[in-house]
């Protein structure tokens, strides 16, 4: 079993952080993982994406051109990547921010108003975590003990007070 996640949005939305969380969930679930960011002169406000592979087998290419799971948090990324999702794959779309539609019927699209949900629940800035929760649920990487361990690892010590809010966001996403 191999999951090839492509996460995309604007810099500052927590795309790389969400990718790191997925990678640590994979690592603590005993799988092979790789995390590859796009890097370039563009930073805050520019487009940003990252490739995360979680697999039972050793990972060849860490670069994902045809994701099995796509998470998008802005319209340019949606337009750019929705066509690249593997047939039978899934797309997780922040419908608060993405203005678009697709006629693809060979993939499963989850339109989740993640940014709206975050704002309504006092979780401003955690739309990325809400979407990640949904991804973990739908891909079966949803062992809560593993997820909590991964979350504790990726949240920097200085922000440890945000652990509960992140957990709340994850659960909100899982039930969305």
């Amino acid at each position: 079993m191999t999951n090839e996640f492509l996460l995309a949005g604007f810099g500052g939305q927590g795309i790389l952080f969400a990718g790191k969380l997925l990678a640590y969930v994979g690592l603590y679930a005993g799988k092979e993982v790789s995390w590859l960011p796009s890097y370039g002169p563009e930073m805050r406000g520019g487009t940003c994406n990252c490739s995360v592979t979680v697999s039972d087998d050793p990972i060849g290419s860490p670069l994902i051109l045809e994701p099995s799971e796509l998470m998008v948090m802005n319209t340019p990324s949606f337009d750019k990547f929705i066509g690249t999702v593997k047939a039978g794959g899934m797309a997780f779309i922040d419908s608060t921010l993405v203005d678009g539609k697709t006629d693809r019927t060979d993939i499963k699209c989850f339109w989740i108003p993640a940014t709206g949900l975050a704002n309504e629940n006092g979780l401003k800035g955690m739309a990325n975590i809400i979407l990640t929760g949904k991804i973990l649920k739908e891909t079966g990487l949803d062992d809560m003990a593993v997820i909590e361990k991964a979350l504790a690892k990726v949240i920097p010590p200085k922000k440890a007070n945000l652990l509960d809010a992140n957990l709340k966001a994850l659960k909100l996403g899982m039930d969305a």
Partner: protein
Amino acid sequence: MAEKSLMKGNEALAEAAIRAGCKCFFGYPITPQTEISAYLSKRMPKVGGTFLQAESEVAAINMVYGCAGSGIRCMTSSSSPGISLKAEGISYIAGADLPCVIIDVVRGGPGLGGIQPSQADYWQITKGLAHGDFHVLVYAPASVQEMADMVAKAFDMADEYRMPAMILADGLLGQMMEPVEFPDVEIKMSDASNKPWAANGHKGERKHNIINSLYLQPQELEDKVVERFKRYEDLKANHTMAVADYCDDADIVVVAYGSTARLAKSAVDAARKEGLKVGMFRPVTLWPFPEKELREATKNAKKVLTVEMSMGQMIDDVKLAINCSKPVEFYGRTGGIIPAPADILNKIKEMGGNK
């Protein structure tokens, strides 16, 4: 052993350098290797070492020259244009027979080029790094774990053979995160205690040592160079490294190094799933090039395919190793474009990969 954690290739390399006894780092920032400097700027002072951001790449490599002369394990890192600037200093270090480790996290070129991954420095690093008759050891990791493992190896070999050792990585390996663990390494020769040549103060107890690369008497210089090349011959005979997968029955053997080997391996695995007889050969040392290992891996092959993130540079060494005894084709992308495994697979099929 400690639990594995995720680290960027650049950071894993930096941590491994400290664990290998590197006591001094001299650098100058450049994408995509800056995480090495950033990491060491935090860690080096905590282990009693020296981190120094020099005023330029040229200054940094000359600080390495001086530090290496005192017998202390030291390192510098840069990316392509910065390595060109360091070239003169590297030649002096080689000419003075000093050990050090130099990291090149390659980006697209020539000129300032771009900042995305590339392998277009192969010729420069393995053949024409700077003036004079000399080589440096070159290791090409293909994973974050290898970024860590090869630093320790590079320090040991540099000390043993008294020559610079380089790690040739690229932006992809430097920036990606993978699980990594740091085995307890036995540090050999990390200080000057067993380096009788070191210029580290003689306290009037021995004859002073001279570190120099200037020999005005031709015979003396020729003798020096010939002695150095004898060491190179020993390296060629005993210290090449390569990984071969499914080569025994392969009609086509794909040759690729570093991160490109990862991409090529994905294509080779896909080809095997379709029943195509394709093998994979990955040189781990680029100098010395694993010639005999490649000859062995390709002895039953009909064709060879070299894949690189350049216009084709390592392909020269592939042809030389097999003495052009069979066709060697090339597929590559350059300028920071990463070759897609699907495109490599297409090339394999175009070459007539048979079931």
